[in-house]
């Protein structure tokens, strides 16, 4: 989230799209209601009438998989009706930037310029680059801003050159982003959008009008989204589209604005921050790829951004290496960079793991509190792959379907040679540590009670595993033992594992004396500081009580809210540097005057910056002697981008610099917006395991979702009797019309099937689902929760994900759970 939960009350218009926030994040409703009580509007856009829709001021239905058409239409509406916030867009975005004149989009084939059929990619995207006005090399002289790059101990690398883009502040140049954008979205007429989405035109325009009204400078609009936006083969572009809409309306960086991902798990934000993903290290830094980053020098030169705050990346990365390898990481061995595993060209994402089991590459698996046998796409395929493993270790509170995959219906356990270990873990209040919520608040959870029986917390298990492996490698040797044995592992006090020591390593400290650093501005690239997760730096920095979380920023419980904006600056710690609204410089105009004085986050009073939130820009310079010199306002509102501005046009995307509508991998409709059917470089589309379905055989759109009463694969909630009772059975929701067509009555057992699976469940027939008219034809849609499986002491049912396709987004490889094809018959 750019903003945070309490901030929703500051919105004039809240649009939930691809998020059923009342259902899946019930706590949001109190804040939505506060906004409504002040006259705010709540819009829900969803294929079905949800618990959120029941509370909405405007509900607009839209076929699953047509979001981009909806956004394209909204952009056109904003542009055509001149509702964009001019000062914001002109100064804080790249609207004025000039793009390579060779850039083009061809409607006939739906491709942007630069497509390479041979590699099935846009390659380097050269035609998407800005025209260059000037080249500014880093000033590494002793008095220069980049003097640190030449300091002793800093890895050798060639200082970067910032390429400053050419601009046309009048935005008339045909190659400027603004003109390109106007042209690009001219095709998204309301008629076409209605035909593609199935959203009645009056509803569509009602939503557009209400949300676009937040383009007024003093108005705020927020978008709440979730997996309904991301779990598509063009999911990243959905997110980009939301960002573009919000930039056009001047809604990013302001109280009551932003694009706010309501993430699905208590600490999925945190585990993403921790880089428990194949492609990122903790703090959103690239995992080394052999071809791109063969050396530390290459990593720094490739990954460091030539201007803006990411220019400091070498400081964060070297400090991270110092945390990982401690004394073993020295300037001489490039801070043990070689010890980091380097990726090859294989796609290592979730879907890829199962393809790689199939290919004989992956042979063992550790599964910490995750249940891919139910939660993964094409889950029956994933289960069959588990049976190819030599061994599997599952660590959980319960026996999940993954741990017990060899017991699945239809499986003969005698045929399965995989050895499976199942370790009993501790629940959240049976251990301690922090979690980061969607609003980036890092909060400490304390231990209330011992886990039952011999269950242990994951930290203890990990610690023990490390020590055992270290012992084995020290005793027996093996493949590159130092990679493991040299890991810096100072996470013990008096011989017992101590999680506060991990927190200290994540926060960062100076190597010489172990003193916790105040925040990441104190990190250096010369090996003098260690810091595991630079963005968390400051969350655990009190040197007076390093072993007492209650005395650390993350444990703080101050209830004051001086601004009245719900920022609660003394409650827990919000990364980065306790900032509650990121990009908050954009909440004020170029001169530093807030767009809305009642929602002041930062304000230039003529001599200095006043602020209710931690400013997200260089607002002052503190000299060595402590003298503070305020920095007068400029237009650099987005300091994480080299441009200093936000991107309406983003050359870094793999599937196009402007979000464009493509149909889902499996769709009942022909793409009417361009001549390409689905995203050209979606991932795994050609994998044999996918078994795509033809709309002639499977004409019904299906989507998956969650219920308030359950959570994810149901591993937790189907084992709790209160919740099993509250929502006991697996079902598929369908319209009255479809039920009639199929001869199905409410409560009947039905078979839902496609080429991947056939599963049986109860029918829930409801007027909350309605058929869509798409491209002049009736298209039915159904939906089902994915909380059920076969392994539970309380409630069992069919696995929805047996039906979902294991194809992924071009940028992220996130699977397309949210729109695929099925057929239905009475069981």
């Amino acid at each position, binding site marked *: 989230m750019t903003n945070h939960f309490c901030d929703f009350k500051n919105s004039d218009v809240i649009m939930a799209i691809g998020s059923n926030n*009342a*259902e899946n994040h*019930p*706590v949001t*409703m*109190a804040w939505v*209601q506060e906004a409504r009580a002040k006259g705010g509007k709540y819009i829900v856009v969803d294929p079905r*009438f949800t*618990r*959120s*829709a*029941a*509370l909405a001021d405007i*509900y607009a239905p839209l076929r699953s998989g047509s979001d981009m058409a909806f956004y394209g239409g909204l952009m056109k509406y904003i542009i055509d009706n001149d509702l964009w916030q001019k000062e914001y867009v002109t100064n804080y975005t790249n609207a004025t930037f000039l793009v390579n004149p060779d850039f083009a989009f061809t409607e006939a084939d739906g491709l942007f310029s630069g497509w390479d059929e041979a590699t099935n990619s846009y390659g380097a995207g050269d035609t998407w680059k800005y025209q260059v006005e000037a080249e500014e090399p880093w000033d590494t002289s002793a008095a220069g801003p980049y003097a640190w790059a030449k300091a002793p101990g800093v890895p050798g690398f060639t200082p970067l050159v910032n390429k400053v883009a050419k601009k046309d502040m009048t935005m008339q140049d045909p190659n400027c982003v603004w003109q390109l954008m106007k042209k690009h979205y001219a095709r998204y007429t309301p008629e076409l959008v209605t035909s593609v989405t199935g959203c009645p035109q009056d509803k569509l325009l009602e939503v557009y009008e209400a949300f676009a009204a937040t383009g007024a400078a003093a108005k705020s609009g927020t978008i709440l989204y979730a997996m309904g936006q991301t779990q598509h083969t063009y999911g990243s572009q959905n997110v980009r589209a939301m960002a573009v809409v919000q930039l056009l309306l001047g809604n990013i960086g302001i109280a009551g604005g932003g694009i706010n991902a309501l993430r699905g798990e208590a600490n999925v934000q945190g585990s993403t921050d921790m880089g428990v993903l194949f492609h990122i290290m903790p703090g959103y830094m690239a995992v080394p790829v052999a071809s791109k980053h063969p050396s530390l020098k290459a990593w720094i030169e490739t990954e460091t951004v030539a201007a803006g705050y990411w220019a400091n990346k070498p400081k964060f990365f070297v400090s991270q290496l110092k945390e990982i390898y401690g004394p073993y990481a020295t300037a001489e061995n490039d801070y043990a960079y070689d010890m980091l595993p380097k990726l090859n060209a294989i796609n290592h994402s979730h879907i890829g793991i199962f393809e790689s089991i199939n290919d004989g590459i992956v042979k063992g698996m550790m599964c910490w509190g995750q249940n891919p046998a139910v939660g993964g796409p094409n889950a029956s395929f994933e289960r069959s792959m588990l049976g190819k493993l030599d061994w599997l270790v599952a660590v959980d509170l319960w026996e999940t379907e993954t741990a017990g995959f060899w017991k699945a219906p239809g499986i003969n356990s005698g045929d399965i040679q995989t050895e499976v270990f199942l370790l009993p873990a501790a629940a959240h209040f049976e251990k301690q540590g922090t979690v980061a919520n969607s609003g980036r608040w890092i909060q400490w959870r304390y231990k209330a009670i011992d886990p039952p029986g011999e269950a242990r917390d994951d930290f203890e298990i990990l610690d023990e595993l490390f020590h055992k492996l270290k012992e084995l490698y020290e005793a027996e040797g093996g493949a590159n033992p130092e990679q493991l044995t040299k890991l810096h592992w100072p996470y013990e006090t008096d011989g017992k594992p101590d999680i506060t020591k991990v927190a200290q390593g994540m926060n960062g400290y100076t190597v010489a004396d172990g003193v916790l650093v105040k925040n990441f501005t104190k990190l250096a690239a010369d090996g003098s500081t260690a810091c595991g997760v630079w963005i968390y730096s400051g969350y655990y920095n009190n040197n007076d009580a390093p072993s007492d979380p209650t005395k650390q920023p993350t444990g703080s419980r101050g209830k004051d809210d001086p601004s009245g904006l719900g920022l609660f600056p003394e409650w827990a710690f919000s990364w980065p540097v306790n900032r509650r609204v990121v990009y908050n410089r954009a909440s004020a105009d170029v001169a530093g005057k807030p767009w809305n004085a009642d929602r002041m986050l930062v304000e230039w009073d003529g001599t200095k910056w006043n602020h209710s939130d931690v400013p997200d820009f260089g607002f002052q310079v503190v000299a060595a002697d402590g003298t503070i010199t305020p920095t007068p306002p400029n237009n650099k509102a987005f300091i994480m981008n080299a441009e200093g501005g936000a991107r309406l046009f983003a050359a870094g995307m793999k599937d196009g610099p402007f979000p464009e509508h493509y149909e889902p991998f499996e769709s009942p409709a022909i793409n009417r917006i361009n001549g390409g059917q689905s995203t050209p470089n979606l991932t795994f589309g050609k994998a044999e395991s996918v078994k795509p379905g033809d709309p002639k055989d499977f004409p019904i759109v299906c989507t998956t979702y969650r*219920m*308030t*009463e359950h959570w994810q694969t149901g591993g937790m909630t189907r084992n709790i*009797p*209160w*919740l*099993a*009772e*509250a*929502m*006991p*059975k697996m*079902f598929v929701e369908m319209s*009255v019309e479809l*039920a*009639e067509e199929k001869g*199905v*009555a*409410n*409560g009947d057992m039905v078979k839902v099937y496609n080429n991947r699976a056939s599963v049986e469940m*109860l029918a*829930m*027939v*409801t*007027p*909350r689902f309605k058929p869509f008219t798409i491209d002049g034809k009736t298209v039915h849609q159904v939906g089902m929760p994915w909380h059920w499986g076969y392994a*539970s*002491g*309380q*409630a*069992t049912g069919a696995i929805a994900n047996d039906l979902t396709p294991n194809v992924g987004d071009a940028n992220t490889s996130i699977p397309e759970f949210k729109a695929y094809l099925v057929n239905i018959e009475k069981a």
Partner: protein
Amino acid sequence: MTESAILYDSSKCSACKGCQVQCKQWNMLPSSLTKDDYEFTGSYQSMSDLNGDTRLLMEFREEDAPEGIEWAFSRRACYHCAEPACLEVCPVGAISKLENGTVKLDSSKCVGCKYCTVACPFDVPKYRENFSVTNKCTMCDDRVEQGREPACVQTCPAGAMTFGSRDEMVSEGEARVAELKAAGFDKAELYGVTEMGGMHSLFVAKYGYEAHGLIRDPKASDVSGLMSLLKPLTGLGVAAMIGGLGVSFLASMGYEREGMNVKSKPKDDAAKEAK
């Protein structure tokens, strides 16, 4: 002592069932520990009605109205009537009215005769087989005594429930109804102001009483007078007899709970067929 009441506003409720589960949590009420031992109601509703281990149930009703879906959520639990029929008929004094209007059922005194289950016009008190007592909402009088809100009220994440002085709750509820009407919900009304002498659990019905399953003009059972006469007698035979009366009473009220709250055919078609 001022009378207090819970105000439930169905227009703010997201039907998350936090109240339903927190009621069980605080009051230590189990759900079945037997695998797959739960019913499917055909809607998001957990079970077709309250039971001995369930004092509060979220109900779901939906209608395909011309102006859009009317998905009516209802919090079903004891209303804490000013003139409680259950109290009238309890032969052992297990049911009492507290100063703040709470109708309390003390299960340590309850002998499980089920008179109250029959007398209640709302069919709220339920018999707990394993404990041979009757069970219903206590308004968390233990919490209220300690200055806390009832568990269901405190846990409501959407702020759809409020607890406070009854007068205030009535005026707040009336204000909410006025707001809803102004916003175009013409059928909105407040339930419990005068029903059964005035209830201590008020209900802002966004789509009107009927849409939310609320009984218009509820009356204590005709049999409750008879039962209060029989109060001193606590024989099994009497309980059985009264039980029988209760069944016919319920039938005469035309009050029946649908197992499947959703009709599988549109209203119009169903109406046509009925003709």
